[in-house]
């Protein structure tokens, strides 16, 4: 830039550099040891790295422990109804392509009461990052079986153990029409968690990330051992996948090469139950996006609108009606 005048620089310069603090608000009220804390830190870091203007960023959630998330972000937020984060988020984005949208939803919110919207939000494929905080239990209502609770989970609604096999959110999402991005990560591997959300933020469509999350209060046993043993994770590796620094990658003993453009393999690996596969299962950047359709025809002038209205009324006007 030396020697060129300021006016010649066509790139708009940011008002100022934003730090992590610009994306935080208040003190998160999740239980100590809850996976929510590390996810919050990862999202704030992604926002900072992307230098998203906080006023142009909206976090939309449903109801549940995870859905308190927007209250802890320094952005705009919408803490709505149980199961209904997706319709609200899609409505936010439809006519506001300038906004960066995060959807925060839990396993009960997304896979049970809001399951219908989940199918369609994937199909709309509007550019946003959807984070499924999956701890396999209803926390805020105090330990009821969730649709992702493993078979036999003892809960207050199934004291003798749950009787149905759980929904596999990856397998399910990979079956929806127009799916364009499916990844999995865990709350206890901050480097991979960050890299996954960062990759999701770049995706031109709906990036669906299932975060395997610990609930230290109600599901201490579910991921307790796994979290302390990196060997339980299966690292999906590919140049087009989610890549962590070599030092971090080295810590994964189980590595599976997977090309994320291959949906058939993605569906096969989504069914792995022996260990937790983490990484990018599937990505397709060519899928149609409903937000492209929604942003059509915006910003028309009042004069044009008025003329169009007059033309429309002409069609209903009785000719020679003045006697």
């Amino acid at each position, binding site marked *: 830039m030396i020697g060129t005048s300021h006016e010649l620089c066509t790139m708009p310069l940011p008002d100022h550099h934003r730090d992590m603090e610009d994306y935080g*608000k*208040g003190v998160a009220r999740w239980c100590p040891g809850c996976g929510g804390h590390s996810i919050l830190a990862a999202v704030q870091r992604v926002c900072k790295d992307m230098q998203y*203007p*906080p*006023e*142009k960023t*909206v*976090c*939309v959630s449903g*109801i549940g422990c995870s859905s308190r998330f*927007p*209250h802890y*972000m320094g*952005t*705009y*937020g*919408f*803490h*709505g*109804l149980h199961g*209904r984060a997706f*319709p*609200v*988020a*899609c*409505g*936010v*984005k*439809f*006519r*506001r392509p*300038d*906004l960066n949208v995060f959807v925060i939803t839990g396993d009960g919110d997304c896979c049970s009461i809001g399951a*219908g*919207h989940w*199918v*369609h939000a994937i199909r709309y494929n509007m550019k946003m990052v959807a984070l499924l905080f999956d701890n396999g239990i209803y926390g805020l209502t105090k330990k009821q079986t969730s649709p992702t609770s493993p078979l036999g989970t003892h809960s207050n609604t199934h004291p003798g153990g749950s009787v149905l096999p759980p929904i596999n959110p990856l397998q399910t999402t990979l079956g929806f029409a127009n799916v364009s991005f499916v990844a999995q990560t865990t709350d206890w591997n901050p480097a991979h968690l960050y890299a996954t959300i960062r990759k999701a933020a770049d995706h031109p469509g709906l990036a669906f990330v299932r975060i395997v999350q610990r609930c230290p209060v109600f599901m201490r046993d579910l991921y307790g051992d796994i979290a302390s043993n990196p060997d339980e994770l299966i690292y999906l590796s590919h140049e087009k996948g989610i890549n962590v620094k070599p030092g971090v990658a080295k810590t994964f003993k189980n590595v599976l090469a997977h090309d994320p453009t291959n949906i058939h393999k993605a569906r096969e690996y989504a069914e792995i139950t022996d260990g937790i596969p983490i990484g990018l299962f599937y990505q397709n950047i060519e899928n149609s996006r409903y937000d492209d*359709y*929604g942003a*059509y*025809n*915006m*910003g*028309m002038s*009042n*004069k*044009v*609108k*008025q003329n*169009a*209205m007059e033309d*429309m*009324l002409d069609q*209903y*006007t*009785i*000719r020679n*009606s*003045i*006697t």
Partner: protein
Amino acid sequence: MDNGSVSNQIISKRSSVKPKRIDQAIVEIVSDSGEGAQKCGQSLGAISAQMGNGVWTVEIIPAEIQPPARSREGASGIRVRIGSKKVTNMGNHADLVVALNEQVIYGRLRQNAYHKGTIMLIDDRWGTHEVEAIRHQYATALKEFRALGIEVHEIPMEPECLKILPDTRKGKNMWVLGMLSYIFDRDLGKAEEQIRSIFKKKSKAVVDLNIQLLHAGYVWAVDNFPLHYTIPAMEVSAEQVVMNGNQALSLGVMAAGIELCSMYPITPATSVSHHLAENIQKVGGIVHQAEDEIAAIGFAIGASYAGKTPVTVTSGPGLALKTEFLGLAVMAEIPLVIIDVQRGGPSTGLPTKVEQSDLLAAIYGEAGDAPKIVLAASTIEECFHFVILARKLAEAFRTPVILLSDANLATGVQPFPRPKIDTDWIAPPNDQSPWQEGIKPFDWDPQTGLSKRPIPGQKEGMYTVTGLAHGPHGRVAYEPEINQNSAESRSRKIAAFQKTLKPPVIHGDPEGDLLLIGWGSTLGAIEEAVDKGRALGLKVSSLHLRFLFPIVPGLVEIFSRFKKVITVEINYSDTPGDPMITQENRRYAQLAWYLRAKTQCDIDCFSNVYGQPMNPGKVLEMIKKEIANHKSSHVTS
């Protein structure tokens, strides 16, 4: 073929017969589904409106798309009331009915659509049908109809149409239109224009064929039919438009500058979104068909939170599904317009028939205390203007606004003065200027409860909407007084709006023996009955409510000037004297229930749920009975 010269020849042919002048005619066309009776009737209505007549149409729609042929329940058709004055309702009995078979007439007789003297023009094909049972049914029916005093004319529609068409299931309707055009002295040129307009997406061959049928029907009537009437045009001072209520709602949405309609298909509201889907892109908008009713309002709320006020269009079952989100919109103070085109309920109810049963659901349907604005349009013209009003109110008072219409207005066609489009009606662009620091997102004015909302994109305005109890800063509240204070603010702003309302205008004298109160599409029927009652010397007046919540001021004072007050509604109420019904357990019609609670006046009700528009004759009977009862009880006491 040059249609113009043909129509001139036809017109010159009938000039020797002078038509009889009448003030109005109620005409029905009834058929099996799929025979085009509605298209025929709508065209007759449109031609008449083009000629300057007052018009009101009501569609007769079966619940199924193609119910079995020749069934009483499958009656499909339309009523068209044409007058020399403004027509505001469907009237009482039909003066003339065109029937494409005799069975469908039974369905209409059950609804008391005809009486002694009604002229029936029936397709005579059934009298010579190859199946004996059908011939027998037809002969029996005609005997029964004549016994009722109906003047039956058997018309050779089938052979006449077969001269032009290989299959008469499609096309006979335009032959009928031709016949009716002669009988009621309709302008043949306008009829041709109408055919060109309704078939504008079809080939020239289709248009020509239909015009040929129109001419054939017209000529047949000139040569063979004895009756010939004319209905002079009304005097109007302003340019008129003619459309149905759902078209008016759609045009209102666009005139209001609403850029998003988020909907899910539901009868009888869907055609609003059809009209929008075809047109809203011309004014920079878009229709979103959501995956369900809940998502439709959720999407609208998300869009409103991030920008301009959208609309969602639904009917009773959809309104029920939307209640949780409506509660959120009240709690989070998100502007939104919800149009409810009411139908019969509860549950799936009567999807294609009119009812006014969503009033209390609209006002009180949500869990918790959820005050919002509820309006009802009572004419097709109001369907247009009230959407514009609803959007402005939603934004000014930061609230959802429910606009009630109904199945009667939805498909009814009526002329009204052409709106003068005003760019002030259009929603302003999103405010993206920096938010004023120090102003909280729910900075409730202690006097009015009003506050201004930040919109994403506004710097320093960042806040989180929540359906949880929250204080002025928008954060989840843990202090007990915050819930009380925020509920007060949300209630107070509705009261602030109520302060701007004026007492309703009384139709008739300001005092008397009986006051009728209505809301919604019953306006025309009530006022017609009141006018007739007053012409008979009865001291009856009426008033019609447009603002249901909050309620207009001055009602108690108005009620005190009448000896009796009765609401007229199309919803259910118990009838005193029926088994088990006592004064203690009697359930009142919805507006009556609501006004009794609001005014503590002893308000009675006249209501039913036959799925039919309010009939002015029935209202007049009630007026006479009520005034006579009151007089006799006064004498004896």
